[in-house]
């Protein structure tokens, strides 16, 4: 072996450069990743799926009970620790007016000028002129206010333990930790706006759940909020029933419906699809009117609608949404991909239609992300066509995707035709 010689040569030569051919060769070596046998890969996948299944199965009752017992013991220990650390309740926060006058506490009606409220923990709230708010409740960690209309500015001081500040405004609730922000609400104009200057807040209600950080603004203007807002005054808005407001504000409100408002930008159909709320997307499209949506919805919404429809077995609607993508957004990647998905849907009918869509897809996107699948599905569906074409396609598939999921099928076609090796 001549292993010592190169080292000697190297040490005598110029130092390797960071961006030189030696470094490139070294990095190529570092990119070595080894080879894994397909059987080993399949076994690994099966092992993962078994573990996934086990993770989803409910645990036996004795395991759950022991888990509860442990959790209970931990909670008891934590409670003792909290007591020990002198987090003993110190009573609710108190507050006083620093500026302005009120007609009746806790109503803060800033008719003649702004009202400043100072809380005993150092936090403050300013109700701007012409606005009306009220303090609904105070606890030792914060206060619960309601903004009937106008604009209020919060300056909540951070606390060692989690703060408990919240503000209801129409159908929304703003939950606060340590932060400075303003909230504007107008039931008449259906306007809700939050501007966060420091820290972060959580906005919930009307189907939304949005965290805002310093510098961010949330603004919503819409007719749909008016009815909900009128019904929700004085009640925690996070529990607002979105589509069917309660008959009376005195009645307990139902939990929020899973369907979210489709025209709210922060809760798009794509996001709902991502969250698995497929039925909600389809329902929203139906409320809007499917033909109108097919004519006017954005490409993103059409794609989300097609996905939601496909994943809830609404083949006709999925097909309409995919065709609309192709008609209205021809040439886009989504429109090209729609051809493949139309092929998949069409497999429920005559094979020729599905094959037509796969051909379309492969013509438009010969190297697209579904190319392997489109070619593979053609192999599976193409049994009725002439053998020469099937053989040609099987060869093409193996040449392009030798380890693809349809490789075995392609080989069987070649073997049947006598072309197999």
């Amino acid at each position, binding site marked *: *072996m*001549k292993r010592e*010689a*190169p*080292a000697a*040569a*190297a*040490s005598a030569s110029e*130092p*390797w450069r*960071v961006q030189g*051919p*030696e*470094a490139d*060769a*070294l*990095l190529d*070596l*570092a*990119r*070595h*990743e*080894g080879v894994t046998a397909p059987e*080993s890969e399949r076994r*690994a*996948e099966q092992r*993962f*799926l078994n573990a*996934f299944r086990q*993770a989803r199965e409910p645990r036996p009752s004795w395991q759950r009970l022991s888990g509860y017992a442990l959790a209970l013991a931990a909670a008891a220990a934590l409670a003792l620790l909290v007591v020990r650390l002198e987090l003993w309740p110190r009573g609710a926060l108190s507050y006083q007016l620093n500026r302005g006058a009120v007609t009746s506490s806790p109503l803060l009606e800033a008719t003649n000028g702004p009202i400043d409220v100072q809380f005993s923990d150092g936090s403050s709230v300013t109700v701007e002129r012409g606005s009306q708010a009220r303090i609904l409740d105070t606890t030792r960690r914060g206060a619960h206010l309601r903004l009937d209309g106008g604009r209020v500015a919060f300056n909540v001081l951070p606390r060692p333990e989690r703060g408990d500040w919240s503000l209801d405004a129409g159908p929304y609730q703003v939950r606060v930790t340590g932060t400075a922000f303003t909230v504007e609400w107008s039931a008449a104009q259906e306007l809700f706006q939050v501007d966060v200057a420091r820290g972060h807040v959580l906005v919930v209600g009307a189907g939304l759940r949005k965290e805002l950080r310093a510098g961010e603004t949330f603004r919503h203007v819409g007719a749909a909020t008016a009815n909900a807002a009128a019904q929700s005054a004085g009640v925690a808005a996070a529990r607002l029933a979105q589509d069917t407001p309660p008959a009376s504000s005195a009645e307990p409100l139902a939990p929020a419906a899973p369907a979210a408002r489709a025209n709210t930008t922060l809760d798009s159909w794509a996001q709902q*699809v*991502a969250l*698995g*709320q497929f039925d909600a997307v389809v329902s929203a499209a139906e409320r809007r009117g499917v033909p109108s949506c097919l004519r006017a919805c954005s490409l993103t919404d059409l794609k989300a609608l097609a*996905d939601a429809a*496909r*994943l*809830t*077995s*609404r*083949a*006709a609607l999925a097909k309409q949404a995919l*065709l609309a993508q*192709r008609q209205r957004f*021809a040439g886009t990647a989504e429109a090209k*991909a729609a051809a493949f*998905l139309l092929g*998949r*849907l*069409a497999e*429920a*009918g*005559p094979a*020729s*239609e599905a094959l*037509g*869509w796969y051909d*379309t897809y492969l013509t438009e996107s010969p190297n697209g992300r*579904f190319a392997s*699948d489109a070619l593979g599905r053609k192999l599976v569906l193409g049994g009725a066509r002439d053998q020469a074409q099937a053989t040609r396609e099987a060869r093409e598939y193996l040449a392009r995707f030798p380890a693809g999921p349809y490789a075995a099928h392609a080989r069987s076609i070649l073997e049947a035709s006598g072309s197999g090796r």
Partner: protein
Amino acid sequence: MNKPSTPSAWASPPARSSPPSVVRPNVSELPLDGVSDAALVAALLNGSQRAASVIWQRHAPAVRRMLARSLGPDQELDDLVQEVFLGLVKSAEKLQDPSTLRSYLVGIAFRTAAMEIRRRKVRRWVRLTPSGEVPDSVARDDEPDDRRALRALHRILDTLSTRDRLVFVARFVEGLQIEETAAALKLSKATVWRCGKSSLQHVIEKAQLDPALAEYVERALKGRPS
């Protein structure tokens, strides 16, 4: 219009032998291969085993590759890949933007690699040999040259801190951008830049002094077209 040769067939549902209201195509059983990562994560959260399978098929090769490049030849690689995907199953609910599944998995993979590197260091300390190397990582004379060189390279990577090693792998081996590396390793961009520069310099300097690597590089350069 971009349609196949039988566009009229799409004007109405395909003709069937039974009433359309009774027969509905079982679209939910379609392969999820073409479905977006976001939809897959949603399905995973709903307990879909098919989604778990597709996520595995789509991302396991990249995760395995990343771990192999971070850790070198390792008999426990399969276990580590499992660890990454089980980590995803446990924490998928925390994934705020499901469309970033790949980046999320990259992050888990690097954290798993970091834990494994630390475990190795502990093992090395417990089973300390005079050379400070784990016995099974020592090169043998009858090993193929490339494998010997690879082991030598990973011995050099072992001399880097965990952070520097992972930055080196992410930036120069995996080819991630500074921003992507910073996000995956939860470091600042400045730290990534600094660690990348120093780790590359360190590896190059050490490699030049290693006989197996010097020989490998010489052979590789001779084999390249000029």
